[in-house]
């Protein structure tokens, strides 16, 4: 393999190399420094005489004397079953002091798109034990459901609680967790690792750590390495894999940085115009394939800059993922854990995973009714601030109270509290029974007769 010493320009993470032999687009590149260290990069642009390389680490130490080798293949990830229980760097190298991973396969990290015709519909209900998810934003196996949060909010605890408590009722199948950290602090990473260790999840986990002081550009490949591993575990070894990606905001910042270095025309707020497509290349790597045993369920976490849900990062994410769980600063301030604001939250695959066959026949309607009532009560809060409680009609007062009850009993629960879906729905009914029956317009009569505490009591008494 020819080594070139023809670097002509270095700008940010980009290295420009003159060359003579043809080099393939997206090819892997090794750059050897004077002290023998080797840095990795990828070809972004290739023409007859010039190649632009994006380096995945800092360009510190790279100079015109560095040797450049084009490896003739795209970036591959060595994968194997032994990866379970291991901790790797954001670039995929073991950092837990353990031996190198003996690869069973080497896979392209970009990952080809799953043929939509080969996908199977996700529909297996995952019980997370958290009411605001199970009851009103149900997660199903194979879904991609991000957590939209803000700086300083307890999104990590929510993610951990989900990872710890998630189960598919009545199933004993093999599961695994792939955890990819991008630019989070050592302290946050420890929080995750301690919890994984405490609960024994680490044995079933593959951890990729790109921390705050690791090279920002490496973040571009971290989630891809993680998902390549997840695809191997899921679609070749048949495991059910939960992938946690945190923090996607840091990933997008890295993307913006590279765009700027390439002097591209920036899109909204300086993020590249292709960020939607790029993020889709990550988030779409979730799901189930017909005839294969495993699945990939994704939990990306992102912090919304300025708590702004219209910021390009949450916005483009929301356009790709199958819903979102929104963590609210206001609820957090009220001391409510988990501070999930159900109103802007959504699970688009909920309808596939609930109902008679999966949870309970009344699930959908109860959820709709809880939403409608809470939304109405929540609106009235604004009104009360202006006109006072006395100006409200009796009906309005009931809804106002309902909103408080909802936050206090349905939303609020313990960090270790694992509620069954039946408990969650029953709490829902209990709250709804504080409203007059005729206000429950979203629920059909039969279900009310069957599940409403008032009638259930009556039915029991009659027996």
């Amino acid at each position, binding site marked *: 393999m020819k080594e070139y010493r023809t670097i002509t320009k270095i700008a940010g993470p980009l290295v420009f190399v003159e060359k003579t032999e043809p080099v*393939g687009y997206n090819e892997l590149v090794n750059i050897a420094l004077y002290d023998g260290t080797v840095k990795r990069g990828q070809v972004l642009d290739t023409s007859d005489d010039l190649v632009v390389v994006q380096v995945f680490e800092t360009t510190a130490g790279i100079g015109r004397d560095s040797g450049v080798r084009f490896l003739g293949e795209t970036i591959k990830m060595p994968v194997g079953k032994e990866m379970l229980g291991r901790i790797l760097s954001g670039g995929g190298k073991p950092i837990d002091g353990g031996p190198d991973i003996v690869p069973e396969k080497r896979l392209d990290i970009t990952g080809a798109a799953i*043929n939509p015709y080969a996908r199977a519909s996700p529909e297996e209900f995952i019980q997370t034990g958290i009411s605001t998810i199970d009851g009103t934003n149900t997660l199903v196996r194979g879904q991609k459901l991000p957590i939209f949060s803000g700086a300083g909010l307890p999104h990590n605890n929510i993610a951990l609680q989900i990872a710890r408590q998630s189960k598919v009722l009545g199933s004993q199948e093999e599961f695994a967790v792939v955890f990819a950290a991008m630019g989070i602090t050592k302290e946050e990473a420890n929080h995750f690792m301690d919890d994984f260790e405490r609960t024994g999840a680490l044995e079933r986990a593959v951890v990729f750590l790109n921390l705050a002081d690791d090279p920002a550009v490496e973040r571009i490949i971290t989630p891809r390495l993680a998902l390549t591993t997840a695809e191997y575990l899921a679609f070749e070894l048949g495991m059910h894999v939960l992938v946690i990606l945190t923090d996607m905001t840091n990933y997008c910042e890295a993307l913006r940085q590279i765009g700027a270095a390439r002097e591209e025309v920036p899109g909204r707020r300086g993020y590249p115009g292709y960020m939607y497509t790029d993020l889709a290349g990550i988030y779409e790597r979730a799901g189930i394939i017909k005839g294969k045993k495993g699945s990939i369920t994704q939990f990306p976490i992102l912090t919304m800059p300025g708590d702004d849900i219209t910021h390009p990062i949450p916005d483009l994410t929301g356009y790709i993922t199958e819903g979102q769980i929104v963590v609210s600063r206001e609820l957090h301030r009220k001391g409510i854990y988990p501070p999930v604001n159900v109103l802007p939250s959504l699970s688009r695959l909920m309808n596939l995973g609930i109902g008679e066959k999966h949870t309970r026949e009344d699930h959908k309607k109860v959820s709709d009714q809880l939403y409608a009532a809470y939304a109405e009560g929540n609106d009235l809060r604004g009104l009360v601030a202006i006109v006072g409680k006395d100006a409200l009609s009796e009906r309005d007062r009931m809804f106002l109270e309902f909103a408080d009850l909802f936050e206090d009993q349905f939303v609020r629960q313990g960090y270790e509290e694992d509620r069954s879906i039946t408990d969650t729905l029953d709490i829902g009914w209990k709250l709804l029974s504080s409203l007059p029956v005729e206000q429950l317009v979203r629920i059909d009569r039969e279900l009310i007769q069957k599940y409403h505490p008032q009638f259930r009591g009556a039915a029991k008494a009659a027996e």
Partner: protein
Amino acid sequence: MKENQKQGDKGVLKRIAGPVVAAVGVNAHMYDVVKVGHEELMGEVIKIQGEEIIIQVYEDTSGIRPGEPVENTGLSLAVELGPGLLTSIYDGIQRPLAVLVDKMGDFIERGVSAPGLDHAKKWNFEPLVREGDAVKPGSIIGQVQETNIVHRVLVPPNAEPATVRSIKSGSFTVDDVVCTLDNGTELTMMHKWPVRVPRPVTEKMNPDIPLITGQRILDGLFPIAKGGTAAIPGPFGSGKTVTQQQLAKWSDAEIVVYIGCGERGNEMTEVLTEFPELEDPKTGKPLMERTVLIANTSNMPVAAREASVYTGITIAEYFRDMGYDVSLMADSTSRWAEAMREISSRLEEMPGEEGYPAYLAARLSEFYERAGLVETLNGSSGSVSVIGAVSPPGGDFSEPVTQNTLRIVKVFWALDAKLSQRRHFPAINWLNSYSLYLESLNDWYDREVSPEWNVLRSWAMEVLQKEAELQEIVQLVGSDALPEAEQLTIEVARMIREIFLQQNAYDAVDTFCDMSKQYDMMKTIKAFSDLAYTAQAAGVTPQQILSTKAKNDLPQIKFIKDYKPELDRIMGEMEKEFNALRSSV
């Protein structure tokens, strides 16, 4: 068609940077399809500058090197049109996804070509013309029972008028000649058509029949005509896809073309699993039998995403030319526009607003112009209705794609995050949405629904408008401070919203509501309103009116299939209650 002399011309790649590559030494016309590299990836010429041609490649270009060959096919990007389209699912350049699974497994690898139609399958061709008959472009020469839909075999629009020399009957593949014309032209059941060229028609007509969708807010308040255009913009999670899918399921079109353009894989899977199980309310046949799907999801190549809407609309036009009413959903046109932007920026073109190319508006209007109610070349009438979803960044409608779309389309269904957050579905804002077809459809509603319908609709819109004004006052002083009559208005508006406008796509009954049920529901709400105002004028208090019981049963009507007896009962009770109230004052 004339042969393109550039066919077979070869050159070499010069530069590769993502989906856009440059080559030299190839003679080419704009939009010629070329084969790129040793793997012969499919691409299309999108710019010519001096010696160099710029190509957008429909597949991933990783590993492709400068110096690899490029060959011009001399053809434009075209689709195969013939029996076998229905029930198929294609990618953006009409490769059947089912065939791709067979050829390369569960993931989409590259370098595999697959024709749009199955060339081995035999179809039973039944001729409809005889030797000696004169035919011209667009004439129907025969038919094939494709699914429950009859596939009419057409003389291609670019053929010459001629006389039938011979025609066959029996079982043939799409490559077999079934008819020979006296000018020597041999016709098969299939022809190709370049996707970027609209198929010709005799005349465009003004649409005057609604596309009935079974969605109350659409049919009732903001209808789209058969052959019309509509846009459905909204932030993420507001209901674009669900609405589009509802239209694909329940609208009374004969053929549905559904384009998943840069959206989610699972959504297409959902359509694929659900549609074969659902029945067309009109024919009782599986919905899939009238459907063609195009799925170029967000993670599939962006150049093929750009092509997908053209592939879709060309297929739609083809069925229109057979005399069918076709409806086409494009979800989402914003992803298409973004594909244009991405390619344009790689061409280093001067960007227009928000980085979109300056020709964005022109492309959008050319696309929507391909909709319409037409007299086809053979004199029959057919239509293509186009419904495009728009995904504005941050849900802000002032952005270029939404704005340019609204300048063209006649119906605007404005999705509203405030409504979807409180689970008011469909989350279509009744104050901002509009339909410019209302007037031309009035006659139809008079005739087919009831002469009262148009009056009822205007009444409902007035109440909703009035409510919006009153809500502003309520925000300042509370609802108890409103005059009595206006308190009733608030209540009636709530009934219109909760009973009529809200419709649950996931309820087995409520998912589809025919016009006569829509009419009955609205009529009953109006009846309540009339009773209420009369009673109030006679001195009954709003509290008394609001606490009547019978009206509380009205929302249940949505979930009942044979709702008439229940509705009559409620109506009877309502009258009784009001009689009692009036006699008590």
